């Protein structure tokens, strides 16, 4: 067997080099590598456009809808080759975009994160200003909610223009498994004081009071910002970004200490680093967790749970001692559909068509119907669908929001801060002390400030 395969292999190599016979010097020069032109057109004359989102998990309703729409676009636009390079995992997604930018061939349509943290992409002309396109076609965005454009408005930095269209806005919220609370004859607590009081009973009955899938490090980042809003409003964010306050000053340190205490008290259960956001959902469905800290983006997925009738949506818990910040939220626009092709590029027109398709009123109308009205949308609809219970509950809280911000680190021009804070705060779950965590974050901030 082995001999046979070797001889086949050798024969094929010999066939390759058959030109080099005896007495015949073969100048065996390497095939000159392929032409290095920017391949906007593929072999069959189609214009190639790539799209990068975080939607690649067919188990999620809105991600599946996106994938179906990619197929639909392809069918309707034979002259464009739309390549979907989407990837769910946040880190892989970001790496993909960054390598494409670094190599000078940025992915044409992508999920732009906006905010100060990503101003470099705007400043250096990677992301295209679409304001003139929006002016040319007012019907495109007539139903968009204007406030959602704030994170892609860089006029405060002296840069005019619009750098993307908001995708579905989100709000950080909690889902409760009501069956557990009924079984134990308890009310569902909506404040941290209430949760602290309820936790021992839940633990005793074998339930995780609030599941926290820290394997995804954004969970810790979201949690901290949400907590800071309920305790300080957005003042703490402003102070941190302006360097008026340090991450290891008593305010932020106090919040991290709270998280640490809850973790130590078993409020978040065990082995948090072993599961991710999907794991949180599984624990809610399997009746292992009484509450999960989650967000509006999961409503449509939860609606497909077998025990959907037991699930209740409530806002992120507030503090009884801080009633004035009860309706301060972490949330807002999630990310933005943006493009990188510039007018004059061979793929510009095709890219605009792709961008329009995936941000159109029809696209969201379809999503609205696919999710049966569940979740949140960047546009308003003429005819509203009677939404499911969870969405209705969510909107009840969301509608009362007095203020809403994205994750604190996004407001800082220090690009690495987002990952630093998330990674460091996550170490609560591997036993680190709040003080050390806060010191390390501030240490990175100081290093950054010193060199910029």
């Amino acid at each position, binding site marked *: 067997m082995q001999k046979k395969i070797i001889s086949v*292999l050798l024969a094929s*190599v010999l066939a390759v080099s058959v030109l080099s016979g005896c007495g015949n010097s073969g100048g065996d020069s390497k095939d000159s590598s392929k032409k290095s032109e920017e391949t906007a057109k593929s072999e069959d004359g189609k214009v190639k456009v790539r799209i990068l989102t975080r939607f690649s998990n067919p188990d999620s309703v809105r991600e599946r809808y996106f994938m179906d729409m990619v197929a639909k676009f392809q069918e309707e636009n034979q002259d464009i080759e739309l390549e979907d390079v989407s990837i769910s995992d946040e880190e892989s997604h970001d790496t993909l975009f960054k390598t494409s930018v670094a190599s000078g061939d940025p992915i044409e349509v992508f999920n732009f994160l906006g905010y100060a943290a990503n101003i470099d992409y705007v400043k250096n002309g990677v992301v295209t200003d679409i304001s003139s396109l929006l002016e040319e076609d007012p019907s495109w965005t007539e139903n968009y909610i204007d406030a959602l454009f704030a994170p892609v408005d860089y006029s405060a930095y002296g840069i005019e223009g619009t750098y993307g269209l908001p995708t579905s806005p989100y709000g950080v919220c909690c889902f409760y498994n009501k069956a557990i609370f009924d079984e134990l004859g308890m009310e569902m607590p909506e404040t941290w004081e209430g949760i602290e009081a309820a936790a021992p009973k839940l633990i005793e009955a074998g339930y995780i009071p609030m599941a926290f899938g820290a394997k995804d490090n954004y969970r810790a980042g979201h949690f901290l910002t949400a907590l800071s809003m309920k305790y300080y409003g957005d003042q703490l964010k402003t102070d941190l970004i302006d360097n008026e306050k340090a991450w290891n000053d008593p305010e932020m340190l106090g919040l991290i200490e709270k998280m640490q205490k809850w973790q130590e008290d078993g409020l978040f259960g065990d082995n948090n680093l072993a599961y991710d956001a999907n794991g949180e959902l599984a624990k809610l469905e399997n009746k292992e967790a009484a509450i999960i800290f989650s967000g509006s983006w999961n409503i449509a997925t939860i609606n497909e749970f077998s025990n959907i009738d037991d699930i209740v949506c409530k806002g992120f818990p507030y503090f009884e001692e801080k009633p004035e910040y009860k309706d301060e939220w972490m949330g807002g626009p999630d990310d933005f559909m943006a493009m990188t092709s510039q007018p004059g590029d061979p793929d510009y027109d095709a890219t605009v068509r792709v961008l329009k398709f995936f941000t159109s009123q029809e696209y969201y109308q379809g999503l609205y119907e696919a999710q049966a009205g569940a979740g949140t949308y960047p546009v308003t609809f003429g005819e509203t669908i009677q939404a499911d219970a969870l969405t209705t509950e969510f909107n009840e809280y969301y509608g009362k929001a007095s203020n809403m911000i994205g994750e604190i680190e996004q407001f800082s021009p220090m690009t690495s801060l987002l990952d630093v804070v998330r990674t460091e705060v996550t170490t609560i779950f591997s036993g680190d002390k709040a003080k050390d965590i806060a010191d390390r974050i501030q240490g990175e901030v100081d290093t950054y400030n010193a060199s910029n």
Partner: protein
Amino acid sequence: MKRLKAGDIIYRLFAIVFFLIFIYPIYFTVVSSFKTNTEIWNTMFALPSKIEWSNYTSAIFDVGILRAVLNSFIFSFGACMVVVVFVTMAAYVAARKLIRFSGALRLYYLLGLMIPPYAMLIPIVTMFTNFGFRDKYWPMILLYAAINFPMSFYLITGYIEGISKELDEAAIVDGCSTTGIVFRIIFPIASPGIFTGAIISFLAVYNELIFANTLLTNQAMKTISVRLLGLQGERFTSYGPMFASIVLSIVPILIIYLIFQEKVESGMAAGAVKG
């Protein structure tokens, strides 16, 4: 009949314990790939109560693992072909010192054995996109060939040095060109050595992750390592298909290993002694 001494028994026991340690993770993966989501946990050895073939259909149709296996094969086979042809030519010239600086050239290539290729990740990524090389088979194959070239060069040069010069001298008298000698005479004689170099390159490329993960964006181009890595974030709660994907991705390479066992082992051992 000779009685076994206590020491011998302990020795054999250890040999078997290690056998179990090395085989168990694979056993667990294979068994789990036939189980339902809940059945996987809290068991160590149990066989599935009912064989869950749907894990495999999901691994093939949803995950697309076979496409990834095919891609890995294309990259591996391509790179190992390029390596074989280029290296044999260069190794013959170096082994017979046909050009000046042959010694310096060998040191130059030796550098490639000492330095981890991923240290050059950023310039390589930049270079690839500047030339429009990403998501294409050929550039990727050439990259892998370049990375694995030094090891094969080392192995094959050593092998050719062991071949008597009389053969090539006879061929020269017959009017054979150097190229002719390389492919008509050296190639068949050195084929065991060349094949060892080829199989080592093949394995290295089949399992490579870092470059594939940063240079391949197109779903249809991804290799097994990239695809398996992507699964972690994508569908972390459906474990069965994940195990099935692992099984489908390691079975082909295990088969290749079992067929070419001696070659793989001797090649790896020879490669280790590079210093």
